[in-house]
C-alpha cells in the first residue's frame, strides 16, 4: 500500500507542471451519437485517453502535440493542439472499404483482455442469422462465454450460472435476457449502440454478480435527421425510428414482435371449430424508447425505457373438461440519467433506475360442475440510484468514486388456488431488501509499459434485520512490452445477493429468482485471471490467450430430487441445499481477423467446472450442469461484393452433463449412483446467411437476408432422459396382449433443427 501511495504522489506531482488540458466529446458526424470507447492519442507525448460511455474524454499533455482521434469503423482524424481547450470532435463514418481497414485501430491492446466489446460498427459486421444480429448469441460465440442448451436462455460466463451476470440496459438491471426460451435476445439490435462484456478483473464500479457484467447502451437517437427502418422477417418484424425533436433533444423508438406462434394457429382453428382437442401458440413483443436532452454544453439528461413480454397460451378440452394455461413473463426497465462535465477533469453521472421482472402462470380447469384454478406468480423489482464522479487527474490517471443504493422487492412464489371460482388458498411472501455500496477505483498508467487498475468496493445488503457487509478488492495489472502486446493479471472478489433457483440449468421462465435472506447467505467468489494479447500485422489480426481460476462459495441448489415446478406451494427455502462450493478454471484462445474482405474470429475454450454440496452426490465433487471440456467457435463474415455479404457461424462444444442410471432394481426403478455421470451428445451447429444490400427506386437502403440456422439439420440435445417404457404386443385375435414388458432407453429431445429464415428491411 505504501508503494501505491508513493506512486500516486509521483503521478499527482506531475500535474503541477504547466500542461495542456483537453476535454470534450467525440461523436458520429452523421447522427450526432456519442462514440463510446473512441481513442484520443497524443503522438509526440505518447499519451492517450478513451471516451467514456457518454463520449466524454479528458487528456492532459505537457506540450503542444498532434492528436490522433480514431474509432472502429470511422475515419481517423489528426488535429494539432497547442493550448488547453474543450474540443468536441465529430468523426465521419468510413467508407465500407475503409471499415475493413480501420476495424479496431488504436484500441489499447490491454483492453482486449477479459473483455468483449461490440461497437456500433462491429454490430453491423456480426453474422446475421434468423433475420437479425443477435447480441447475446454473438457474445456466446466468444471464448469463455456460452449459452446453456438450445431452448434455454442462460448466458454462462467462465463456468458461472445464468444469474451470475449483471446485465445492464442503460443502467437498469435486466433479469430475463431472452425471448422464446433463448431463441431471440431481448436486445433489439436496431436500438443498441454498444455492448461491453467484462468477464474478469472487474472495476470496483460493478458489483452484485459473480461472473460477468454485460453493459448494453441504447442509441441516443439521431440528432441531425429523422431516420426510420422497418424489417419484415419470418421470425420477427420490427420498426425503428429516431431523430431530433428540436436542437437539443433527440429520440429513439423501436418495437419488435414475433409471430412464431402462427405455427400453432392451425391447432387453434381446429380447436375453435370442434371445441375439442388441444391448441398452443406463442407470441412476444419488445419496445425500446429513449430521449436525450442536451441541457447545455456540459449537462445532459437521458430517459430510457424498455418493455418486453413473452406470452404462451395453451388450451385443451377433453371429455367436457376445459383446461386453460396462460404463461407469460417479461421485463420492464426504465432509467433517468443526468451527466455533468463539471470541468475538463471532473465528470459526474447520476442514475435513477427501475426494473421489474414478472413471471405469471395461470391454470384453469372448467367443466359443467367444476371451476378450479391456480395462479402462480413470481416477480422482482429494483429501484436503484447510482452516483459516480470521475476525476481525470491529468497524470494518465482516472479516479472513479461512487456509490449505489438499491431497494429490492422480491416475490419468489405467490400461489393462489381457486375452487369453484373462489380463492381457497393464497400463499407467498414479499421480501424487501436494501443493498448499498461505495467504491473507489484508480486507473493509473504508471509508464508507457505498465498500468494499474486498483479498486475497492464496500458492498452491503440488509434483509430481515440481518446485514451482510463485505469489502471487495479489485486489481488488474497490465504490462505492455510494446504498443501491440500486453500481459494482464486480474483479481476480483465479488458477492451476489440474489440467486436463481433453476431445475433446468437456467433459462426457462419458471426459474425463480430468490434473494439472499437471513437464512440464505449471498454467493461469493474470487477470480484470478491472466491474459496475453498481441496485435498482429498492423492490427489486422489480434490474438488473445487467457486463463482463469474462479472459486465460488455459499452457492445454493435444489435439494436432491426437488423442483420448484412440482413444489410450487412450498417455501423455496425449504427446498434448497446451501453452502455449495464451486471451482471453475480454464484457458481461452481467441484469434480475430479485423481487416480485409474476410473478417471474423476463432475461439476455443478448455474448461473445468465442478460443484460440491454436502447433501448432493454424497458430499463428493461433481461436474456442474454446464461443465464443458471443449468449446469451439468459428465466425466468418465475407464481403463478396459491395452488395452481397456471406455470414457463417460454426459451433462445437462438448455435451452437457446428465444424470443417468447405472442399473435397475425393478423394471421401473432405476438406480442413480453419481450426479452428472454422463454427457449428452456433443453440440454441433453451422449457421449460414447471405445478405443483399441495395437501394430501391426511391434511393432507400434495402437489405435482404436469407439464412439457415443449423444448416446441418443436426438434432442437438435439449435434454436427455432415461425411460423405462411399457410396451405390449397384440395379435389380431385378442384385446389382451400376448406379450408385455418394459424396455429401457436413453433418449434426447431436440429443440430446434434446421431453421430457414429471411428478412427484408428498408431504411428511409
Amino acid at each position, binding site marked *: 500500500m505504501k508503494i501505491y501511495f508513493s506512486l500516486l504522489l509521483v503521478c499527482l506531482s506531475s500535474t503541477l507542471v504547466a500542461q495542456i488540458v483537453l476535454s470534450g466529446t467525440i461523436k458520429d458526424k452523421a447522427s450526432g451519437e456519442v462514440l463510446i470507447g473512441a481513442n484520443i492519442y497524443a503522438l509526440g507525448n505518447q499519451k492517450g485517453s478513451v471516451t467514456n460511455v457518454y463520449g466524454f474524454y479528458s487528456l492532459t499533455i505537457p506540450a503542444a502535440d498532434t492528436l490522433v482521434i480514431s474509432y472502429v469503423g470511422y475515419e481517423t482524424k489528426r488535429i494539432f493542439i497547442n493550448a488547453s481547450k474543450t474540443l468536441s470532435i465529430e468523426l465521419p463514418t468510413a467508407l465500407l472499404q475503409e471499415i475493413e481497414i480501420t476495424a479496431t485501430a488504436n484500441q489499447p491492446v490491454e483492453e482486449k483482455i477479459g473483455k468483449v466489446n461490440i461497437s456500433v460498427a462491429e454490430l453491423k459486421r456480426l453474422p446475421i442469422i434468423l433475420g437479425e444480429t443477435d447480441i447475446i448469441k454473438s457474445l456466446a460465440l466468444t471464448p469463455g462465454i456460452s449459452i446453456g442448451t438450445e431452448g434455454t436462455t442462460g448466458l454462462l460466463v467462465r463456468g458461472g450460472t445464468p444469474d451470475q451476470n449483471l446485465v445492464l440496459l442503460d443502467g437498469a438491471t435486466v433479469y430475463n435476457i431472452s425471448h422464446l426460451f433463448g431463441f431471440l435476445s431481448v436486445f433489439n439490435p436496431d436500438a443498441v449502440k454498444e455492448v461491453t462484456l467484462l468477464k474478469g478483473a472487474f472495476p470496483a464500479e460493478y458489483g452484485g454478480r459473480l461472473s460477468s457484467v454485460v453493459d448494453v447502451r441504447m442509441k441516443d437517437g439521431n440528432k441531425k435527421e429523422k431516420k426510420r427502418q422497418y424489417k419484415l422477417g419470418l421470425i420477427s418484424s420490427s420498426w425503428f425510428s429516431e431523430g431530433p425533436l428540436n436542437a437539443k433533444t433527440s429520440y429513439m423508438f423501436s418495437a419488435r414482435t414475433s409471430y412464431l406462434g402462427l405455427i400453432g394457429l392451425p391447432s387453434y382453428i381446429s380447436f375453435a371449430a370442434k371445441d375439442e382437442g388441444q391448441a398452443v401458440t406463442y407470441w412476444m413483443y419488445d419496445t425500446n424508447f429513449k430521449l436525450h436532452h442536451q441541457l447545455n454544453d456540459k449537462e445532459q439528461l437521458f430517459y430510457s425505457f424498455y418493455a418486453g413480454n413473452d406470452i404462451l397460451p395453451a388450451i385443451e378440452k377433453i371429455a367436457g373438461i376445459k383446461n386453460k394455461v396462460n404463461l407469460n413473463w417479461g421485463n420492464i426497465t426504465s432509467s433517468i440519467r443526468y451527466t455533468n462535465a463539471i470541468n475538463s477533469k471532473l465528470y459526474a453521472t447520476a442514475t435513477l433506475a427501475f426494473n421489474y421482472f414478472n413471471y405469471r402462470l395461470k391454470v384453469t380447469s372448467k367443466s359443467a360442475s367444476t371451476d378450479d384454478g391456480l395462479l402462480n406468480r413470481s416477480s422482482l423489482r429494483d429501484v436503484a440510484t447510482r452516483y459516480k464522479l470521475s476525476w481525470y487527474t491529468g497524470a494518465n490517471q482516472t479516479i472513479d468514486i461512487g456509490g449505489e443504493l438499491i431497494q429490492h422487492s422480491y416475490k419468489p412464489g405467490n400461489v393462489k388456488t381457486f375452487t369453484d371460482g373462489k380463492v381457497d388458498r393464497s400463499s407467498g411472501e414479499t421480501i424487501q431488501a436494501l443493498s448499498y455500496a461505495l467504491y473507489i477505483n484508480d486507473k493509473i498508467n504508471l509508464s508507457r509499459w505498465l498500468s494499474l487498475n486498483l479498486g475497492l468496493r464496500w458492498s452491503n445488503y440488509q434483509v430481515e434485520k440481518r446485514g451482510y457487509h463485505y469489502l471487495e478488492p479489485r486489481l488488474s495489472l497490465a504490462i505492455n512490452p510494446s504498443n501491440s502486446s500486453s500481459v494482464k493479471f486480474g483479481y476480483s472478489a465479488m458477492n451476489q445477493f440474489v440467486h436463481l433457483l433453476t431445475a433446468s440449468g437456467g433459462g426457462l421462465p419458471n426459474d425463480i429468482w430468490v434473494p439472499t435472506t437471513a437464512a440464505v447467505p449471498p454467493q461469493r467468489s474470487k477470480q484470478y485471471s491472466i491474459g496475453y494479447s498481441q496485435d498482429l500485422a498492423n492490427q489486422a489480426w489480434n490474438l488473445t490467450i487467457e486463463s482463469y481460476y474462479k472459486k465460488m462459495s455459499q452457492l445454493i441448489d435444489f435439494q436432491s430430487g426437488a423442483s420448484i415446478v*412440482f413444489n410450487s406451494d412450498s417455501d423455496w427455502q425449504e427446498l434448497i441445499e446451501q453452502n455449495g462450493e464451486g471451482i471453475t478454471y480454464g484457458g481461452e484462445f481467441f484469434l480475430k481477423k479485423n481487416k480485409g474482405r474476410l473478417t471474423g474470429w476463432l475461439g476455443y475454450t478448455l474448461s473445468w467446472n465442478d460443484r460440491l454440496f454436502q447433501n448432493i452426490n454424497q458430499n463428493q465433487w461433481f461436474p456442474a450442469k454446464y461443465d464443458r471440456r471443449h468449446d469451439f467457435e468459428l465466425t466468418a463474415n465475407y464481403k463478396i461484393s459491395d452488395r452481397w455479404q456471406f455470414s457463417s457461424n460454426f459451433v462445437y462444444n462438448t455435451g452437457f452433463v446428465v444424470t443417468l442410471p*447405472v442399473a435397475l432394481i425393478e423394471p421401473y426403478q432405476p438406480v442413480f449412483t453419481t450426479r452428472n455421470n454422463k454427457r449428452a451428445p456433443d453440440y454441433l451447429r453451422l449457421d449460414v446467411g447471405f445478405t443483399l444490400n441495395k437501394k430501391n427506386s426511391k434511393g432507400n437502403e434495402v437489405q435482404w437476408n436469407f439464412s439457415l440456422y443449423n444448416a446441418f439439420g443436426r438434432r442437438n440435445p435439449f435434454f436427455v432422459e432415461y425411460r423405462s417404457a411399457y410396451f405390449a404386443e397384440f395379435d389380431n385375435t385378442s384385446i389382451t396382449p400376448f*406379450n408385455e414388458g418394459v424396455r429401457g432407453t436413453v433418449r434426447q429431445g431436440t429443440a430446434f433443427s434446421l431453421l430457414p429464415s429471411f428478412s427484408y428491411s428498408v431504411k428511409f
Partner: protein
Amino acid sequence: MKKVITLLGFTILFLTNCFKDLDYDLDFEGQEIVIRGTISPQDGAIIQVSHTLDPEGTYFFDTLDLNINNAIVKLYANDTLLQQISYSGKNGLYLEEDLTLNRNVAYHLTVEVEGFPSARTEKIEIPQLPQTTFNLVREDENELRIDIEVADNPKASYYQLVANGYYDMEVVELYAYPIGTYEQWEICGLIETGSSNGFHITDDCFKEKTFLFPLSVQIEYFQPSLDSSLFFIEPIIVEEVTLRFRSTIKERYDFVVTSDVPEGIDNAFREPAITFSNVIGGHGYFSAYQETVYIHKL
C-alpha cells in the same frame, strides 16, 4: 399438479420437435444383489433378495423374475453371527420371526449368492419404540378418523404408518392418509410409500412436543370382481382395522425419498436424486423399526 404437467407438456411439445433414442453405455457392471431388509423386535427379520437389471435391456413380464431364492443371508450383531435367515420359499423372501433384537446393538447383514458379487450392509441400530395413543372417531359408514398422539423422542425421528384390514381371513390394504392438505404434510416430510396404505413422515413438525396426527382410514375394501366384464363389485366394509405406527431409521426414509424418480417431462425439470443404498457391493437398504399396533374391530 396435472395442470402444471399439462402446461409443461405443451411447452416441451412446442419446443421439442423430435425425440431420438440414443445409443449409450450406461456403465452397467453386471448383475448385483439388491437387498430390501428390515429387522424389528416385533416381527424379526424380513429380508428380500433380488438382483439388478441392465437399464438398457428389454424385459417381458411373464418371464421376468428378479428374486433370488438361493442366497445365504446372515444377520450379525456387533460383528458376531446372530442368525442365518432361512428362505421362506417364495418371492425371494428370507424370514426369521424368533429373534431377540435389542437397542444399542449394531446389526448388519451379509448376502452370498453364487454367481454374484457378495454384498453386505452397513451397520444399523433398532430405534426407540414410538410412544403413541390412538383415539378413534367413526366419521361415517366407510371412513374412520383416528387421532394418533405421538410423543416426540429425540432418538426417533422417522415414522411409518401402515394400515391394513382383515376380511374373510384375508389381509387387505386400506387407504389411509393424514387429514389436511398434501402440501401441509409435505412440509413435515410426508412421503407416500408407493402403496396407498401407508406413508413415511419425519418429526420435522413436532420436535420436542407431543404431536396429534389426524388420520383418515377408508374401511371399505373393493374386492376384485370375478366377472371379467366388471372391474369391481360393491365395496365391502372390512371386519377389522390394523394400524401399525412404526419408528424407523433414516436409511429407510432416505431410500423411499430417493426412489422417487422423475418421469417423462419431469426429467427435464429436476435432477434425479442419487439413489440411497447402505448395501456395500450391491443396492437397496437395510433398516430397522419398532412398532405399536392398534387393532379396531368393526
